């Protein structure tokens, strides 16, 4: 199974998601074609209700602990409750461009 599918499966199984979008953004970065190094996750869930951003990100980081230990290089993470997602008009921020730094 590719890493993108693993990320989707793990998040979908551990978080009660109303919306889950996992985007492979590796092509925007200084890595070989077909890489799975840079991902963006947009996640809408009532599980985040009442939780500060730090706690939400910790939840996701924990679920993806294995992937974050070297398999993937970057994870852009945008977490919303249903109401916050409506306030954001259903769009998450764009990820920054690559600046070519290694590691």
């Amino acid at each position, binding site marked *: 199974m590719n890493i993108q599918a693993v990320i989707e499966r793990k998040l979908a199984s551990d978080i009660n998601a109303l919306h889950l979008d996992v985007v492979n953004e590796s092509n925007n970065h200084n890595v070989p074609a077909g890489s799975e190094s840079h991902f963006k996750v947009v996640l809408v869930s009532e599980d985040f209700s009442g939780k500060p*951003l*730090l706690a939400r*990100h*910790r939840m996701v*980081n924990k679920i993806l*602990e294995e992937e*974050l*230990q070297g398999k993937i290089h*970057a*994870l*852009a*993470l*945008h977490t919303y409750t249903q109401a916050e997602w409506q306030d954001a008009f259903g769009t998450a*921020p764009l*990820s*920054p*461009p*690559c*600046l*070519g*730094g*290694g*590691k």
Partner: protein
Amino acid sequence: MDVLERIGKIVNDNPVVVFMKGTPQLPQCGFSSRTAEALMACGKEFAHVNVLADPEIFENLPRYADWPTFPQVYIKGELIGGCDITLEMFQKGDLQKMVAEAVDG
């Protein structure tokens, strides 16, 4: 000094510090760049540590506050978050308030 003690000293000696790839003037990663830009836009002085120039901190910072990625922003000794959280707080105006309060007391 043990590396975790060294990180702790940096975090506690500076009201606002970002651990990033590169420097605010010459960032080496898009996420670090945006984070430093948000801090600069707060208009107060902040410290930075280039983790690419300090392999020991690069290796060990993730276990300091149990946070696996870079950049990392600390205000008054507490982890605020990485790029996405810092930017979201900046857009809401919360980051400017926290930074001003930390620096000016």
